[in-house]
Protein backbone atom coordinates (compact mmCIF):
# COMPACT_ATOMS: atom_id res chain seq x y z
CA UNK A 1 0.00 0.00 0.00
CA UNK A 2 1.15 3.58 -0.58
CA UNK A 3 2.67 5.46 2.30
CA UNK A 4 1.86 9.07 3.14
CA UNK A 5 2.52 11.25 6.17
CA UNK A 6 0.22 11.81 9.11
CA UNK A 7 -0.17 15.41 7.90
CA UNK A 8 -1.10 14.33 4.38
CA UNK A 9 -3.61 11.89 5.84
CA UNK A 10 -5.30 14.76 7.72
CA UNK A 11 -5.48 16.96 4.62
CA UNK A 12 -6.80 14.07 2.56
CA UNK A 13 -9.54 13.25 5.08
CA UNK A 14 -10.69 16.87 5.29
CA UNK A 15 -10.64 17.18 1.52
CA UNK A 16 -12.70 14.05 0.90
CA UNK A 17 -15.11 14.89 3.72
CA UNK A 18 -15.67 18.40 2.36
CA UNK A 19 -16.34 17.03 -1.08
CA UNK A 20 -18.85 14.56 0.29
CA UNK A 21 -20.73 16.95 2.57
CA UNK A 22 -21.36 20.60 1.63
CA UNK A 23 -22.38 21.36 5.23
CA UNK A 24 -18.82 20.92 6.41
CA UNK A 25 -16.77 24.07 6.83
CA UNK A 26 -13.45 24.68 8.53
CA UNK A 27 -12.77 27.56 10.91
CA UNK A 28 -9.57 28.32 12.76
CA UNK A 29 -6.50 30.45 13.14
CA UNK A 30 -4.23 30.52 10.06
CA UNK A 31 -5.92 27.58 8.37
CA UNK A 32 -6.69 29.43 5.12
CA UNK A 33 -4.01 31.34 3.24
CA UNK A 34 -1.31 29.96 5.51
CA UNK A 35 -2.55 26.37 5.25
CA UNK A 36 -2.48 25.75 8.98
CA UNK A 37 0.43 26.23 11.37
CA UNK A 38 1.34 22.58 10.73
CA UNK A 39 0.15 22.66 7.10
CA UNK A 40 -2.65 20.26 7.96
CA UNK A 41 -5.18 22.26 5.92
CA UNK A 42 -2.79 22.99 3.07
CA UNK A 43 -4.48 23.80 -0.23
CA UNK A 44 -8.04 23.49 1.09
CA UNK A 45 -8.83 27.21 1.07
CA UNK A 46 -7.63 27.44 -2.52
CA UNK A 47 -9.88 24.52 -3.44
CA UNK A 48 -13.02 25.31 -1.42
CA UNK A 49 -12.85 29.07 -0.99
CA UNK A 50 -12.86 31.39 1.98
CA UNK A 51 -16.43 30.59 2.95
CA UNK A 52 -15.66 26.95 3.61
CA UNK A 53 -12.13 27.35 4.94
CA UNK A 54 -12.37 30.37 7.20
CA UNK A 55 -9.40 32.12 8.72
CA UNK A 56 -10.57 33.30 12.11
CA UNK A 57 -9.57 36.11 14.41
CA UNK A 58 -7.44 34.97 17.34
CA UNK A 59 -10.57 34.47 19.39
CA UNK A 60 -10.81 30.93 20.69
CA UNK A 61 -14.17 31.44 22.39
CA UNK A 62 -15.63 32.86 19.20
CA UNK A 63 -14.24 29.91 17.21
CA UNK A 64 -15.75 27.34 19.55
CA UNK A 65 -19.02 29.25 19.83
CA UNK A 66 -19.24 29.57 16.06
CA UNK A 67 -18.81 25.82 15.87
CA UNK A 68 -21.41 25.07 18.53
CA UNK A 69 -24.03 27.51 17.27
CA UNK A 70 -23.70 26.60 13.61
CA UNK A 71 -23.77 22.87 14.44
CA UNK A 72 -27.01 23.29 16.37
CA UNK A 73 -28.70 24.93 13.39
CA UNK A 74 -27.62 22.36 10.83
CA UNK A 75 -24.00 22.82 9.77
CA UNK A 76 -21.15 20.35 10.27
CA UNK A 77 -18.29 22.55 11.43
CA UNK A 78 -14.72 21.36 11.88
CA UNK A 79 -13.01 24.03 13.95
CA UNK A 80 -9.35 24.17 14.82
CA UNK A 81 -7.72 25.35 18.03
CA UNK A 82 -4.09 25.61 17.00
CA UNK A 83 -2.56 24.14 20.15
CA UNK A 84 -4.22 22.25 22.98
CA UNK A 85 -2.58 24.87 25.25
CA UNK A 86 -5.09 27.39 23.85
CA UNK A 87 -8.15 25.36 24.81
CA UNK A 88 -8.20 26.79 28.34
CA UNK A 89 -8.81 30.18 26.70
CA UNK A 90 -12.19 28.88 25.54
CA UNK A 91 -12.69 26.30 28.26
CA UNK A 92 -16.20 27.58 29.01
CA UNK A 93 -17.37 27.06 25.45
CA UNK A 94 -15.88 23.57 25.41
CA UNK A 95 -16.65 22.06 28.79
CA UNK A 96 -19.63 24.11 29.97
CA UNK A 97 -21.43 24.54 26.67
CA UNK A 98 -20.46 22.06 23.94
CA UNK A 99 -20.08 19.19 26.38
CA UNK A 100 -23.15 19.88 28.48
CA UNK A 101 -25.78 21.38 26.23
CA UNK A 102 -27.30 18.16 25.00
CA UNK A 103 -27.57 16.74 28.51
CA UNK A 104 -28.73 19.85 30.34
CA UNK A 105 -31.37 20.50 27.68
CA UNK A 106 -32.77 17.01 28.11
CA UNK A 107 -31.21 15.29 25.10
CA UNK A 108 -33.28 17.28 22.64
CA UNK A 109 -30.42 18.58 20.51
CA UNK A 110 -27.38 17.42 18.61
CA UNK A 111 -24.02 19.16 18.25
CA UNK A 112 -22.14 17.57 15.33
CA UNK A 113 -18.95 19.51 16.01
CA UNK A 114 -15.32 18.48 15.52
CA UNK A 115 -12.64 20.43 17.37
CA UNK A 116 -9.22 19.65 15.93
CA UNK A 117 -6.22 20.54 18.00
CA UNK A 118 -2.57 19.57 18.40
CA UNK A 119 -0.47 18.46 21.35
CA UNK A 120 3.02 17.31 22.14
CA UNK A 121 6.49 18.52 23.13
CA UNK A 122 9.72 18.31 21.16
CA UNK A 123 9.89 21.52 19.12
CA UNK A 124 10.98 23.92 21.83
CA UNK A 125 7.40 25.14 22.20
CA UNK A 126 7.79 25.41 25.98
CA UNK A 127 5.01 25.87 28.50
CA UNK A 128 2.32 27.37 26.21
CA UNK A 129 2.78 25.52 22.90
CA UNK A 130 3.71 21.94 23.73
CA UNK A 131 1.52 20.39 26.37
CA UNK A 132 -0.27 17.07 26.20
CA UNK A 133 -3.32 17.82 28.33
CA UNK A 134 -5.68 15.38 26.59
CA UNK A 135 -6.47 13.52 29.81
CA UNK A 136 -7.85 16.65 31.46
CA UNK A 137 -10.80 16.62 29.06
CA UNK A 138 -11.74 13.07 30.05
CA UNK A 139 -13.04 14.60 33.25
CA UNK A 140 -15.87 16.34 31.42
CA UNK A 141 -18.76 14.15 30.37
CA UNK A 142 -20.15 14.94 26.95
CA UNK A 143 -17.02 15.23 24.80
CA UNK A 144 -15.61 12.39 22.76
CA UNK A 145 -11.82 12.42 22.62
CA UNK A 146 -9.85 10.99 19.73
CA UNK A 147 -6.07 10.48 19.98
CA UNK A 148 -5.02 8.78 16.74
CA UNK A 149 -1.63 7.10 16.74
CA UNK A 150 -0.93 6.38 13.05
CA UNK A 151 -1.46 8.00 9.63
CA UNK A 152 -3.96 5.23 8.88
CA UNK A 153 -5.97 5.92 12.01
CA UNK A 154 -5.92 9.70 11.81
CA UNK A 155 -7.58 9.60 8.41
CA UNK A 156 -10.18 6.98 9.25
CA UNK A 157 -10.95 8.50 12.64
CA UNK A 158 -11.36 11.97 11.20
CA UNK A 159 -14.20 10.67 9.02
CA UNK A 160 -15.73 9.02 12.09
CA UNK A 161 -15.39 12.26 14.07
CA UNK A 162 -17.04 14.31 11.35
CA UNK A 163 -19.95 11.87 11.07
CA UNK A 164 -20.46 11.73 14.83
CA UNK A 165 -23.41 13.76 16.08
CA UNK A 166 -21.60 14.83 19.25
CA UNK A 167 -18.74 17.21 20.03
CA UNK A 168 -15.46 15.44 19.31
CA UNK A 169 -12.13 16.74 20.52
CA UNK A 170 -9.75 15.45 17.86
CA UNK A 171 -6.16 15.64 19.06
CA UNK A 172 -3.26 15.38 16.65
CA UNK A 173 0.22 14.79 18.07
CA UNK A 174 2.20 17.52 16.32
CA UNK A 175 5.39 15.46 16.51
CA UNK A 176 3.73 12.84 14.31
CA UNK A 177 2.84 15.06 11.34
CA UNK A 178 5.90 13.91 9.39
CA UNK A 179 5.49 10.25 10.31
CA UNK A 180 4.80 8.06 7.29
CA UNK A 181 2.57 5.04 7.20
CA UNK A 182 0.29 2.99 5.00
CA UNK A 183 -2.92 4.84 4.29
CA UNK A 184 -5.68 3.61 1.98
CA UNK A 185 -6.93 5.90 -0.78
CA UNK A 186 -10.42 7.35 -0.55
CA UNK A 187 -12.97 7.08 2.21
CA UNK A 188 -12.89 4.63 5.12
CA UNK A 189 -13.63 4.87 8.81
CA UNK A 190 -11.94 3.72 11.99
CA UNK A 191 -14.51 3.28 14.76
CA UNK A 192 -14.43 5.10 18.09
CA UNK A 193 -14.20 3.02 21.26
CA UNK A 194 -12.18 0.24 19.66
CA UNK A 195 -8.56 -0.06 20.76
CA UNK A 196 -5.87 -1.36 18.43
CA UNK A 197 -3.59 -4.18 19.56
CA UNK A 198 -0.39 -3.03 17.87
CA UNK A 199 1.89 -5.81 19.13
CA UNK A 200 0.97 -9.16 20.65
CA UNK A 201 2.50 -10.45 23.83
CA UNK A 202 1.71 -12.52 26.91
CA UNK A 203 4.01 -11.08 29.57
CA UNK A 204 3.26 -7.37 29.95
CA UNK A 205 0.51 -5.05 28.70
CA UNK A 206 1.56 -1.56 27.66
CA UNK A 207 -1.22 0.94 26.98
CA UNK A 208 0.25 3.88 25.09
CA UNK A 209 -1.19 6.95 23.36
CA UNK A 210 -0.26 8.84 20.21
CA UNK A 211 3.50 9.12 19.64
CA UNK A 212 4.14 6.98 22.72
CA UNK A 213 2.62 4.00 20.90
CA UNK A 214 5.66 3.98 18.64
CA UNK A 215 8.13 4.27 21.50
CA UNK A 216 6.40 1.35 23.19
CA UNK A 217 6.56 -0.62 19.95
CA UNK A 218 10.31 -0.02 19.67
CA UNK A 219 10.78 -1.49 23.14
CA UNK A 220 8.35 -4.34 22.46
CA UNK A 221 10.24 -5.32 19.30
CA UNK A 222 13.60 -5.17 21.09
CA UNK A 223 12.44 -7.25 23.99
CA UNK A 224 10.78 -9.80 21.84
CA UNK A 225 14.29 -10.88 20.89
CA UNK A 226 14.97 -11.52 24.59
CA UNK A 227 11.84 -13.62 24.84
CA UNK A 228 9.73 -10.98 26.63
CA UNK A 229 6.26 -10.68 25.14
CA UNK A 230 4.82 -7.16 25.38
CA UNK A 231 1.30 -6.48 24.24
CA UNK A 232 1.01 -2.87 23.05
CA UNK A 233 -2.47 -1.38 23.02
CA UNK A 234 -3.41 1.95 21.48
CA UNK A 235 -6.81 2.98 22.86
CA UNK A 236 -7.28 5.41 19.92
CA UNK A 237 -10.13 7.17 21.72
CA UNK A 238 -10.06 8.18 25.39
CA UNK A 239 -13.82 8.68 25.32
CA UNK A 240 -15.32 6.25 24.59
CA UNK A 241 -12.59 4.09 26.10
CA UNK A 242 -12.29 0.45 25.07
CA UNK A 243 -11.97 -0.95 28.57
CA UNK A 244 -12.67 -4.45 27.37
CA UNK A 245 -9.55 -4.78 25.22
CA UNK A 246 -7.39 -3.32 27.98
CA UNK A 247 -8.84 -5.54 30.69
CA UNK A 248 -8.71 -8.68 28.53
CA UNK A 249 -5.04 -8.09 27.80
CA UNK A 250 -4.35 -7.49 31.47
CA UNK A 251 -6.10 -10.70 32.46
CA UNK A 252 -3.59 -12.47 30.21
CA UNK A 253 -0.44 -10.65 31.37
CA UNK A 254 -1.21 -9.51 34.92
CA UNK A 255 1.25 -6.64 34.41
CA UNK A 256 0.49 -3.16 33.17
CA UNK A 257 2.49 -0.11 32.11
CA UNK A 258 0.87 3.02 30.73
CA UNK A 259 2.95 5.32 28.55
CA UNK A 260 1.47 8.76 28.05
CA UNK A 261 3.00 12.18 27.46
CA UNK A 262 0.63 14.00 29.81
CA UNK A 263 1.75 15.29 33.19
CA UNK A 264 1.94 12.69 35.89
CA UNK A 265 -0.96 13.60 38.18
CA UNK A 266 -4.38 12.98 36.70
CA UNK A 267 -2.69 11.30 33.75
CA UNK A 268 -4.65 9.08 31.37
CA UNK A 269 -2.69 6.22 32.93
CA UNK A 270 -4.10 7.05 36.35
CA UNK A 271 -7.56 6.28 34.99
CA UNK A 272 -6.40 3.03 33.38
CA UNK A 273 -4.79 1.96 36.65
CA UNK A 274 -8.01 2.76 38.47
CA UNK A 275 -10.02 0.68 36.01
CA UNK A 276 -7.70 -2.28 36.55
CA UNK A 277 -7.91 -1.86 40.32
CA UNK A 278 -11.70 -1.77 40.21
CA UNK A 279 -12.39 -4.39 37.59
CA UNK A 280 -9.47 -6.82 37.50
CA UNK A 281 -7.81 -6.69 40.92
CA UNK A 282 -7.53 -10.46 41.18
CA UNK A 283 -5.22 -10.53 38.15
CA UNK A 284 -2.67 -7.99 39.42
CA UNK A 285 0.80 -9.56 39.60
CA UNK A 286 2.95 -6.44 39.82
CA UNK A 287 2.67 -2.71 40.50
CA UNK A 288 0.90 -0.83 37.71
CA UNK A 289 3.45 1.68 36.44
CA UNK A 290 3.03 4.93 34.57
CA UNK A 291 5.69 6.32 32.24
CA UNK A 292 4.73 9.97 31.86
CA UNK A 293 6.07 13.49 31.68
CA UNK A 294 7.10 14.74 35.13
CA UNK A 295 4.63 16.99 36.93
CA UNK A 296 6.05 20.30 35.73
CA UNK A 297 5.17 22.57 32.78
CA UNK A 298 6.94 21.79 29.51
CA UNK A 299 10.45 23.31 29.78
CA UNK A 300 12.12 25.06 26.85
CA UNK A 301 15.76 24.01 26.70
CA UNK A 302 16.41 20.84 24.70
CA UNK A 303 18.49 19.67 27.64
CA UNK A 304 15.32 19.71 29.72
CA UNK A 305 12.62 19.01 27.14
CA UNK A 306 14.13 16.35 24.91
CA UNK A 307 16.48 14.77 27.41
CA UNK A 308 14.22 14.65 30.41
CA UNK A 309 10.64 15.84 29.99
CA UNK A 310 9.32 13.70 27.13
CA UNK A 311 8.83 10.04 28.06
CA UNK A 312 11.31 7.90 26.13
CA UNK A 313 12.27 4.34 25.35
CA UNK A 314 14.73 4.25 28.24
CA UNK A 315 11.96 5.07 30.67
CA UNK A 316 9.80 2.33 29.19
CA UNK A 317 12.64 -0.21 29.42
CA UNK A 318 13.19 0.67 33.08
CA UNK A 319 9.51 0.20 33.79
CA UNK A 320 9.49 -3.15 32.01
CA UNK A 321 12.45 -4.38 34.04
CA UNK A 322 10.86 -3.21 37.27
CA UNK A 323 7.60 -4.98 36.48
CA UNK A 324 9.49 -8.13 35.49
CA UNK A 325 10.97 -8.30 39.00
CA UNK A 326 7.54 -9.51 40.04
CA UNK A 327 7.48 -12.34 37.50
Amino acid at each position, binding site marked *: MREITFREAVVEALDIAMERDPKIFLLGEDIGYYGGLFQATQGLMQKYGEDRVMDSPISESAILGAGI*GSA*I*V*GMHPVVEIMNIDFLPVCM*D*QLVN*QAAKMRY*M*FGGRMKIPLVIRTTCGAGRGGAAHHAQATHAAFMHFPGIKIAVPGTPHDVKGMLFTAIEDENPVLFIEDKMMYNMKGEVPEGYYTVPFGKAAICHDGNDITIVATMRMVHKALTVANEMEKDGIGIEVIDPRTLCPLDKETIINSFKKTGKMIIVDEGNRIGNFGSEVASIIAEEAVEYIQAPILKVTAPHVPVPYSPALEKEFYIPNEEGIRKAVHKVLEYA
Partner: protein
Amino acid sequence: MKLPKSMLLEMLKKMLEIRYFEEKVVDQYARGAVPGLAHLYIGEEAVAVGACMNLTEDDYITSTHRGHGHCIAKGGELKPMMAELFGKKTGYCKGKGGSMHIAAFDKGILGAMGIVGSGGPIAVGAALGIKKQNLDRVVICFFGDGASNEGATHEAMNFASLHKVPVIFVCENNLYGISVAQHRHQAIKDIAVRAAGYAMPGVIVDGMDVLAVYEEVKEAVKRAKSGKGPTLIECKTYRFRGHHEGDPNQGLRYRTKEEIADWRKRCPIESFKKKLLKEKIVKKREIDNIEEDVERRIEEALVYAMESPFPKPEEALEDLFA
Protein backbone atom coordinates in the same frame (compact mmCIF):
# COMPACT_ATOMS: atom_id res chain seq x y z
CA MET B 1 -46.21 53.85 13.63
CA LYS B 2 -49.54 52.34 14.51
CA LEU B 3 -49.57 48.66 15.41
CA PRO B 4 -52.67 46.50 15.06
CA LYS B 5 -54.66 46.06 18.23
CA SER B 6 -54.19 42.30 18.17
CA MET B 7 -50.45 42.79 18.32
CA LEU B 8 -50.66 45.22 21.21
CA LEU B 9 -52.85 42.81 23.13
CA GLU B 10 -50.40 40.01 22.38
CA MET B 11 -47.61 42.14 23.88
CA LEU B 12 -49.66 42.74 26.99
CA LYS B 13 -50.56 39.09 27.27
CA LYS B 14 -46.93 37.95 26.95
CA MET B 15 -45.74 40.43 29.56
CA LEU B 16 -48.48 39.28 31.90
CA GLU B 17 -47.55 35.65 31.32
CA ILE B 18 -43.99 36.39 32.36
CA ARG B 19 -45.08 38.44 35.38
CA TYR B 20 -47.66 35.96 36.66
CA PHE B 21 -45.46 32.98 35.93
CA GLU B 22 -42.71 34.46 38.02
CA GLU B 23 -45.00 35.66 40.80
CA LYS B 24 -46.11 32.05 41.03
CA VAL B 25 -42.47 31.02 41.23
CA VAL B 26 -41.90 33.52 44.06
CA ASP B 27 -44.80 32.00 45.95
CA GLN B 28 -43.74 28.43 45.33
CA TYR B 29 -40.11 29.22 46.12
CA ALA B 30 -41.16 30.68 49.47
CA ARG B 31 -43.04 27.46 50.18
CA GLY B 32 -39.93 25.45 49.41
CA ALA B 33 -41.54 23.76 46.42
CA VAL B 34 -38.93 24.88 43.85
CA PRO B 35 -35.91 22.67 44.41
CA GLY B 36 -33.21 24.94 42.91
CA LEU B 37 -32.18 28.46 42.05
CA ALA B 38 -34.52 30.95 40.38
CA HIS B 39 -33.40 34.29 38.93
CA LEU B 40 -36.46 36.38 38.24
CA TYR B 41 -37.12 38.73 35.35
CA ILE B 42 -39.90 40.76 36.98
CA GLY B 43 -39.54 44.39 35.88
CA GLU B 44 -37.71 43.56 32.63
CA GLU B 45 -40.66 42.07 30.72
CA ALA B 46 -40.80 44.80 28.10
CA VAL B 47 -37.36 43.85 26.81
CA ALA B 48 -38.01 40.19 26.02
CA VAL B 49 -41.51 40.84 24.71
CA GLY B 50 -40.65 43.92 22.67
CA ALA B 51 -37.70 42.08 21.13
CA CYS B 52 -39.33 38.71 20.46
CA MET B 53 -42.48 40.23 18.93
CA ASN B 54 -40.26 40.78 15.90
CA LEU B 55 -39.40 37.11 15.57
CA THR B 56 -41.10 34.10 14.04
CA GLU B 57 -40.87 30.55 15.33
CA ASP B 58 -38.01 29.94 12.87
CA ASP B 59 -35.84 32.67 14.36
CA TYR B 60 -33.60 31.87 17.28
CA ILE B 61 -32.71 33.27 20.68
CA THR B 62 -30.05 32.50 23.22
CA SER B 63 -30.97 33.21 26.80
CA THR B 64 -29.36 33.63 30.19
CA HIS B 65 -29.62 32.52 33.82
CA ARG B 66 -32.45 35.08 34.04
CA GLY B 67 -34.24 33.42 31.19
CA HIS B 68 -37.92 32.75 31.95
CA GLY B 69 -38.97 35.97 30.25
CA HIS B 70 -37.03 35.24 27.06
CA CYS B 71 -38.49 31.75 26.79
CA ILE B 72 -42.08 32.84 27.33
CA ALA B 73 -41.70 35.76 24.94
CA LYS B 74 -40.27 33.45 22.26
CA GLY B 75 -43.22 31.08 22.57
CA GLY B 76 -42.07 28.68 25.25
CA GLU B 77 -45.04 26.87 26.74
CA LEU B 78 -45.92 27.48 30.35
CA LYS B 79 -46.53 23.89 31.39
CA PRO B 80 -43.18 22.32 30.42
CA MET B 81 -41.43 25.45 31.71
CA MET B 82 -43.04 25.23 35.13
CA ALA B 83 -42.47 21.47 35.19
CA GLU B 84 -38.78 22.05 34.49
CA LEU B 85 -38.54 24.40 37.46
CA PHE B 86 -40.05 21.68 39.59
CA GLY B 87 -37.51 19.17 38.29
CA LYS B 88 -40.14 17.03 36.64
CA LYS B 89 -39.83 14.56 33.77
CA THR B 90 -42.35 16.55 31.75
CA GLY B 91 -40.16 19.66 31.86
CA TYR B 92 -38.56 21.08 28.74
CA CYS B 93 -35.27 19.40 29.72
CA LYS B 94 -36.76 16.36 31.48
CA GLY B 95 -35.73 17.86 34.80
CA LYS B 96 -32.04 17.99 33.89
CA GLY B 97 -31.72 21.74 33.33
CA GLY B 98 -33.93 23.60 35.77
CA SER B 99 -34.67 27.30 35.79
CA MET B 100 -31.29 28.34 34.38
CA HIS B 101 -31.18 25.95 31.42
CA ILE B 102 -34.44 25.97 29.53
CA ALA B 103 -34.30 25.22 25.82
CA ALA B 104 -37.07 24.53 23.31
CA PHE B 105 -35.69 23.91 19.85
CA ASP B 106 -39.05 23.68 18.14
CA LYS B 107 -39.62 27.26 19.31
CA GLY B 108 -36.16 28.47 18.31
CA ILE B 109 -35.05 28.74 21.92
CA LEU B 110 -31.46 27.50 21.63
CA GLY B 111 -31.07 27.48 25.35
CA ALA B 112 -30.44 29.44 28.48
CA MET B 113 -26.81 29.43 29.61
CA GLY B 114 -25.98 29.70 33.28
CA ILE B 115 -22.51 31.10 32.69
CA VAL B 116 -22.56 34.87 32.26
CA GLY B 117 -21.41 35.86 28.77
CA SER B 118 -21.35 32.38 27.30
CA GLY B 119 -24.34 32.87 25.02
CA GLY B 120 -22.67 35.43 22.75
CA PRO B 121 -20.35 33.09 20.84
CA ILE B 122 -23.10 30.49 20.44
CA ALA B 123 -25.64 33.04 19.18
CA VAL B 124 -23.08 34.26 16.66
CA GLY B 125 -22.42 30.67 15.64
CA ALA B 126 -26.11 30.09 15.03
CA ALA B 127 -26.19 33.27 12.95
CA LEU B 128 -23.19 32.03 10.98
CA GLY B 129 -25.08 28.79 10.36
CA ILE B 130 -28.08 30.79 9.13
CA LYS B 131 -25.89 32.75 6.76
CA LYS B 132 -24.17 29.66 5.41
CA GLN B 133 -27.52 28.01 4.71
CA ASN B 134 -29.03 31.17 3.23
CA LEU B 135 -31.95 31.05 5.65
CA ASP B 136 -34.18 34.08 6.19
CA ARG B 137 -33.70 34.05 9.95
CA VAL B 138 -32.09 36.03 12.75
CA VAL B 139 -30.74 35.30 16.20
CA ILE B 140 -31.29 37.49 19.23
CA CYS B 141 -28.62 37.17 21.88
CA PHE B 142 -29.91 38.35 25.25
CA PHE B 143 -27.27 39.32 27.78
CA GLY B 144 -26.83 41.71 30.66
CA ASP B 145 -24.61 44.55 31.78
CA GLY B 146 -22.59 41.96 33.70
CA ALA B 147 -21.94 39.92 30.56
CA SER B 148 -20.89 43.07 28.72
CA ASN B 149 -17.62 42.81 30.68
CA GLU B 150 -16.94 39.19 29.70
CA GLY B 151 -14.28 38.54 27.07
CA ALA B 152 -16.43 36.04 25.20
CA THR B 153 -19.00 38.78 24.53
CA HIS B 154 -16.36 40.89 22.82
CA GLU B 155 -15.00 38.00 20.78
CA ALA B 156 -18.55 37.31 19.67
CA MET B 157 -19.26 40.92 18.69
CA ASN B 158 -16.04 41.22 16.71
CA PHE B 159 -16.70 37.97 14.86
CA ALA B 160 -20.34 38.87 14.17
CA SER B 161 -19.54 42.26 12.79
CA LEU B 162 -16.61 40.97 10.74
CA HIS B 163 -18.77 38.37 9.00
CA LYS B 164 -21.97 40.41 9.05
CA VAL B 165 -23.99 37.54 10.46
CA PRO B 166 -27.67 38.08 11.32
CA VAL B 167 -27.50 38.47 15.09
CA ILE B 168 -28.86 41.17 17.37
CA PHE B 169 -27.19 41.77 20.70
CA VAL B 170 -29.91 42.81 23.12
CA CYS B 171 -28.27 44.03 26.30
CA GLU B 172 -30.52 44.18 29.34
CA ASN B 173 -28.77 46.77 31.44
CA ASN B 174 -30.52 46.29 34.77
CA LEU B 175 -27.78 48.31 36.49
CA TYR B 176 -26.35 45.47 38.57
CA GLY B 177 -23.94 42.64 37.90
CA ILE B 178 -25.34 40.44 40.66
CA SER B 179 -24.77 42.89 43.54
CA VAL B 180 -22.26 45.25 41.96
CA ALA B 181 -23.71 48.47 40.60
CA GLN B 182 -22.87 49.44 37.05
CA HIS B 183 -20.74 52.43 38.08
CA ARG B 184 -18.69 50.04 40.20
CA HIS B 185 -18.18 47.45 37.43
CA GLN B 186 -17.51 49.55 34.34
CA ALA B 187 -16.30 53.07 33.57
CA ILE B 188 -18.92 53.70 30.88
CA LYS B 189 -22.51 54.65 31.46
CA ASP B 190 -23.91 53.45 28.17
CA ILE B 191 -22.96 49.97 27.06
CA ALA B 192 -24.17 50.87 23.57
CA VAL B 193 -21.00 52.91 23.04
CA ARG B 194 -19.05 49.67 22.82
CA ALA B 195 -20.70 48.94 19.48
CA ALA B 196 -18.45 51.55 17.87
CA GLY B 197 -15.45 49.38 18.63
CA TYR B 198 -16.94 46.71 16.41
CA ALA B 199 -18.19 48.98 13.63
CA MET B 200 -21.84 48.21 14.29
CA PRO B 201 -24.71 50.47 15.32
CA GLY B 202 -25.26 50.83 19.03
CA VAL B 203 -28.56 52.21 20.26
CA ILE B 204 -30.05 52.97 23.64
CA VAL B 205 -33.67 52.32 24.35
CA ASP B 206 -36.01 52.62 27.32
CA GLY B 207 -36.24 49.01 28.41
CA MET B 208 -39.41 49.73 30.37
CA ASP B 209 -41.28 50.63 27.19
CA VAL B 210 -42.30 47.59 25.19
CA LEU B 211 -43.11 49.61 22.07
CA ALA B 212 -39.77 51.40 22.11
CA VAL B 213 -37.94 48.08 22.36
CA TYR B 214 -40.12 46.64 19.62
CA GLU B 215 -39.29 49.48 17.21
CA GLU B 216 -35.53 49.36 17.77
CA VAL B 217 -35.36 45.60 17.40
CA LYS B 218 -37.52 45.79 14.30
CA GLU B 219 -34.90 48.01 12.65
CA ALA B 220 -32.13 45.68 13.76
CA VAL B 221 -33.93 42.62 12.38
CA LYS B 222 -34.37 44.38 9.05
CA ARG B 223 -30.71 45.27 9.01
CA ALA B 224 -29.60 41.75 9.96
CA LYS B 225 -31.83 40.07 7.39
CA SER B 226 -30.60 42.34 4.63
CA GLY B 227 -27.02 41.19 5.23
CA LYS B 228 -25.83 44.35 6.96
CA GLY B 229 -24.81 42.57 10.13
CA PRO B 230 -25.38 42.93 13.85
CA THR B 231 -26.73 45.71 16.05
CA LEU B 232 -26.17 46.29 19.74
CA ILE B 233 -29.30 47.47 21.51
CA GLU B 234 -28.92 48.53 25.11
CA CYS B 235 -32.19 48.41 27.02
CA LYS B 236 -32.15 50.41 30.25
CA THR B 237 -34.16 48.35 32.65
CA TYR B 238 -34.35 47.14 36.23
CA ARG B 239 -35.07 43.95 38.08
CA PHE B 240 -37.63 44.56 40.78
CA ARG B 241 -36.56 41.56 42.81
CA GLY B 242 -33.13 40.39 44.00
CA HIS B 243 -30.49 38.72 41.89
CA HIS B 244 -32.17 35.43 42.71
CA GLU B 245 -34.85 34.39 45.13
CA GLY B 246 -32.31 33.81 47.87
CA ASP B 247 -31.07 37.41 47.65
CA PRO B 248 -32.16 38.93 51.00
CA ASN B 249 -34.82 41.66 50.81
CA GLN B 250 -34.68 41.93 47.04
CA GLY B 251 -31.16 43.23 47.08
CA LEU B 252 -31.29 45.84 49.85
CA ARG B 253 -27.66 45.08 50.76
CA TYR B 254 -26.52 46.94 47.67
CA ARG B 255 -29.41 49.18 46.54
CA THR B 256 -31.88 51.47 48.27
CA LYS B 257 -35.59 51.09 48.89
CA GLU B 258 -36.08 54.44 47.19
CA GLU B 259 -34.33 53.29 44.03
CA ILE B 260 -36.44 50.14 43.85
CA ALA B 261 -39.63 52.14 44.49
CA ASP B 262 -38.75 54.65 41.77
CA TRP B 263 -38.26 51.94 39.19
CA ARG B 264 -41.39 50.11 40.28
CA LYS B 265 -43.31 53.26 39.44
CA ARG B 266 -42.15 52.70 35.87
CA CYS B 267 -43.51 49.13 35.74
CA PRO B 268 -43.57 48.19 32.04
CA ILE B 269 -46.89 46.40 32.33
CA GLU B 270 -48.75 49.07 34.28
CA SER B 271 -47.52 51.84 32.02
CA PHE B 272 -48.44 49.88 28.90
CA LYS B 273 -51.92 49.20 30.24
CA LYS B 274 -52.35 52.88 31.04
CA LYS B 275 -51.27 53.85 27.58
CA LEU B 276 -53.67 51.38 25.93
CA LEU B 277 -56.56 52.67 28.05
CA LYS B 278 -55.70 56.32 27.62
CA GLU B 279 -55.52 56.00 23.88
CA LYS B 280 -58.79 54.07 24.00
CA ILE B 281 -57.27 51.14 22.17
CA VAL B 282 -58.71 48.69 24.67
CA LYS B 283 -61.38 48.68 27.28
CA LYS B 284 -60.72 47.87 30.91
CA ARG B 285 -62.85 44.77 30.55
CA GLU B 286 -60.61 43.43 27.78
CA ILE B 287 -57.56 43.80 29.99
CA ASP B 288 -59.39 42.10 32.84
CA ASN B 289 -60.22 39.22 30.54
CA ILE B 290 -56.61 38.82 29.45
CA GLU B 291 -55.44 38.92 33.04
CA GLU B 292 -57.95 36.31 34.09
CA ASP B 293 -57.01 34.09 31.19
CA VAL B 294 -53.30 34.33 31.94
CA GLU B 295 -53.88 33.73 35.62
CA ARG B 296 -55.89 30.61 34.84
CA ARG B 297 -53.23 29.25 32.51
CA ILE B 298 -50.46 29.86 35.05
CA GLU B 299 -52.53 27.98 37.60
CA GLU B 300 -52.92 25.12 35.12
CA ALA B 301 -49.18 25.11 34.52
CA LEU B 302 -48.58 24.90 38.25
CA VAL B 303 -50.98 21.99 38.65
CA TYR B 304 -49.36 20.28 35.66
CA ALA B 305 -45.93 20.74 37.18
CA MET B 306 -46.97 19.53 40.61
CA GLU B 307 -48.81 16.50 39.32
CA SER B 308 -46.11 15.47 36.88
CA PRO B 309 -43.80 12.62 37.89
CA PHE B 310 -40.16 13.08 38.78
CA PRO B 311 -37.70 11.37 36.45
CA LYS B 312 -36.49 7.96 37.59
CA PRO B 313 -33.08 8.27 39.32
CA GLU B 314 -31.31 6.21 36.65
CA GLU B 315 -32.50 8.65 33.99
CA ALA B 316 -29.61 10.78 35.25
CA LEU B 317 -27.44 8.58 33.02
CA GLU B 318 -29.41 9.27 29.85
CA ASP B 319 -29.11 12.03 27.21
CA LEU B 320 -25.35 12.55 27.33
CA PHE B 321 -24.57 11.53 23.76
CA ALA B 322 -26.71 11.42 20.64
